[in-house]
């Protein structure tokens, strides 16, 4: 990456930071619920997958360094958003091993806004439309679902 590109990227990140303080999803304020300054990566086993409105949820059991297990609730996008990005009701099932990157809840609870989900087959799929996510032509989205899945 050359110097000019680094500089442009830095400018973009600064600009993105300022505007993303106001960023929000369709029906609630992201900034009122989740902390931009608390990114998190979770690796765990799916307990429950709820593809529901207004946000979908993945319940994930994560084994801590001391061997204990913490149950996390990961918020993902609305079914309409996920559907357009190739998700289906059977995209995730209990027992799947997932890696999820996202942002912690501000209230200290074990809730996370799931930005990106790495599925067992290695595909990275978008969990929500914020902060690097897209709803259109995302390079991280899986291939369109087969016709039989529509």
């Amino acid at each position: 990456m050359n110097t000019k590109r680094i500089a442009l990227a830095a400018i973009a990140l600064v600009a993105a930071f300022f505007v993303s303080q106001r960023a929000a999803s369709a029906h609630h304020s992201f900034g009122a619920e989740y902390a931009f300054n608390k990114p998190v990566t979770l690796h765990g086993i799916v307990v429950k997958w709820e593809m529901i409105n207004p946000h979908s949820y993945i319940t994930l059991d994560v084994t801590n360094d001391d061997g204990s297990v913490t149950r996390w609730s990961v918020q993902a996008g609305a079914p309409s958003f996920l559907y357009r990005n190739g998700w289906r009701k059977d995209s995730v099932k209990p027992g799947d091993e997932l890696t999820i990157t996202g942002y912690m809840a501000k209230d200290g609870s074990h809730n996370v806004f799931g930005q990106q989900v790495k599925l067992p087959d290695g595909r990275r799929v978008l969990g929500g439309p914020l902060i690097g996510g897209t709803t259109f032509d995302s390079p991280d989205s899986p291939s369109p679902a087969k016709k039989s899945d529509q």
Partner: protein
Amino acid sequence: MRNWNIPAVAFALVFALAPAVVAQSPQATADNSNSPPIPRLADGHPNLQGLWHNEVGAAALRQAGLGDIHSPGVPLPLPYLPVLDKIREYRLEHDPYHDPEAHCHVPGVPRIIEQPSSIMPFRIIQDEKYVTILFEYVHDLRIIPQDASPHPKNYWAWDGDSRGRWEGDTFVVDVANFNGRSWLDMDANFVDENEHVVERYTLVDPNTIAYSATIEDPTVFTRPWTMHLTLKKNVSKDRIVYYDCHEGERDVDHYTRSEGNAASKHE
């Protein structure tokens, strides 16, 4: 870092500097001779039908992934009467919990066009008497007569009452009878029951509507102000997908007391 490119940078800067850019943004018109002819219905009026979204919001998602925030065509900061801007600032800082949209109320006009519709599309259905807008977001629905009929008396609603008319090729919608409880966005910009909106929908090419909304509210703002948006037709096989706000709503429980949730269980 590899995903950042010059168009994304440019867009992010434009987005961040939106108020400065707005003043210089020309409003699109229907007489652009470089555009292909616009489709028309049998009655001669422009055919607005199709699946649409707020293009600027979609671009934000595509280019910078910044979510559902203000379009550059919103002239921030809004011209509040003295003291009222302080109320907005207080609500933004301490009371986002009370944004009606967070509690699943319909957004009102023009918020429904500007914000949810940057992520979720809406479909326009039109005949010789009505223009109907079906929104994916919370099943919101606007059935707009084209006869410039008067607003009813003693009626109010979150979306107000919409009455349309044609001015040349522009569909003009007069919206009044608001309940006064809406926020204009998640930044706590607000109106009261004296809100009056005039929307203008101009089909500038088969896939583009130049949209504007002029908002006046003499008990909130010092003067009328106008937002300009570009609505783009979705020509893919996409469709309205079911969206419901109440089905599994858990977000407001996580708003802390400092954000206005007096019943927070987490502090």
